[in-house]
């Protein structure tokens, strides 16, 4: 699962549409995942959304976002966690830790109910019967 965070001076950007930089992380790699930075200066909102779609981003952690942008992102299947503020790294770390914890719980619950857990990918885990 890929996460994007628009940033401004290492804080979560106050506005998604005018954000000049994004951090991209793959949550499957846990909290140690490499933070890739992408410059988005002068990219209009529609092109930023297109970029997130092309980068196969699953979740956007952001500050303020206008309704139209939010609806567009949801239309493309991108989950939006908006109106966040503060240090971007702290928010991202907390999110990744929660994600990891949540996935471990799901995996543990699955292991208790089945012997064959090795084939489970994180994305398809919900398609299996979880006891």
């Amino acid at each position: 699962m890929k996460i994007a965070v628009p940033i401004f001076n290492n804080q979560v950007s106050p506005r998604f549409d005018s954000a000049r930089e994004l951090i991209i992380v793959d949550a499957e790699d846990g909290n140690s995942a490499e933070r890739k930075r992408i410059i988005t200066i002068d990219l209009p909102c529609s092109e930023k959304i297109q970029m997130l779609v092309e980068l196969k981003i699953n979740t956007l952690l952001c500050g303020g976002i206008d309704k139209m942008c939010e609806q567009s992102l949801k239309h493309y299947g991108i989950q939006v966690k908006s109106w966040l503020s503060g240090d971007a790294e702290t928010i991202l770390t907390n999110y990744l830790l929660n994600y990891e914890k949540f996935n471990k719980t799901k995996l543990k619950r699955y292991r208790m109910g089945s012997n064959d857990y090795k084939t489970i990918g994180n994305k398809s885990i919900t398609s299996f019967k979880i006891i």
Partner: protein
Amino acid sequence: MAKDQNNSEYILNAIADGVFTVDPEWNITFFNNSAEIITGTKKTEAIGRKCFEVFRANICQSTCALRETIKSGKKIIDLPVNILNNKGQIIPISVSTSVLRDKGGNIIGGAETFRDLSIIELLKKELTSKYTYADIISKNHLIQDIIQILPDIAKSGSTVLIEGPSGSGKELFAKAIHNLSNRKGALIAMNCGALPDTLLESELFGYVKGAFSDAKQDKPGRFKLAEKGTIFFDEIGDISQALQLKLLRVLQEKEYEALGSTTTSKTDVRVIAATNKNLSDLVAKGDFREDLFYRLNVVKLELPPLSRRKEDIPFLVEHFILKFNALKGRNIRNISGHAMDMLMEYDFPGNIRELENIIEYAFILCFEKQIMSQHFPKEFLNNVKLKNTDEIPINSIIHQSEAKTILEILQKYNGNRVKTASHLGIDKTTLWRKMKKLGITFP
């Protein structure tokens, strides 16, 4: 000293412009009442936070006006920018900035005043028709699906056919497509149903001097006026077979002749056509040329009637109140719950245009801050009432009768629940449950 500060705060809180001040670390130190209203953030939440987290202007992350002022010491006056309020709405404002200094002349922060330009921008839009997809008010998934692809459609330059009932916003979509496109020419609208055939032809292609007895000089047609722009044909389903053929030639060959002219003019115009009829049906009946239909039907947008997007009614009402407040210099704030219920109940055969007319009518009769149902046109009220009497569900009749009986008996026993339940032959818990369900309070 403290008294002076209180007086300043009192004055700053009384003015219509938003005002806030920051310390050198960009933490908000003062936030007046108007700033609360414009940004939607309470001063208790704003004070102590970074200004860019609260203000969310489009320039915060690039060319912050306050930073420039503090750096250079020069004031900035009436800079047009926009902010994002806490409802996720983009609000156009103008900002002015200045430096705050202590008695010794040292910089201790900055002050920013800002003015809400929403009404001015709305009026500008009404005058210039500079609509974009952001002006299309809808939460409906069918409209949202169209909005997502509108920029791509706009940039494609393809011919667009917009189908939808009268008043469903076909022209607004045409304007949005034109304004989102890269075409530099004008958008020229033409209502094909409004003019007789001969007049329509001369309007479309123009004429040269002497083409007919009243043609005293050359007159350019709409195609000429829309050169390098867009021509919007409304009610395209109403044009005659003869004109359909001429239009087909323009779409195929990109050329036409003005009336009475022997020379052929080339044209570079994007065509957007709209109709409230089903063109496929007209083709099947032989009333519309199949080849022209396929020429027009490159990209087809189908707009649903308002009755199929009722979730949009509250947003449209809010928009029209804002619009008529601006146009008529009024200050109506909202609409009563009952009046909104009536609007939600109605099917709007005239669609958004009819809703707009109802709100405009209410503005004539309403002198309070809130639009009530009595401010609506009589015809509308009669239609909603008729609908109500026609379609009261059976459950509702039973509930009304049940509520009436319970209330009468409760009153008879001065609100005594045990006696009322005993009289009705039910348990007192059942009575309490029924009262809760029917919304009955003790008399």
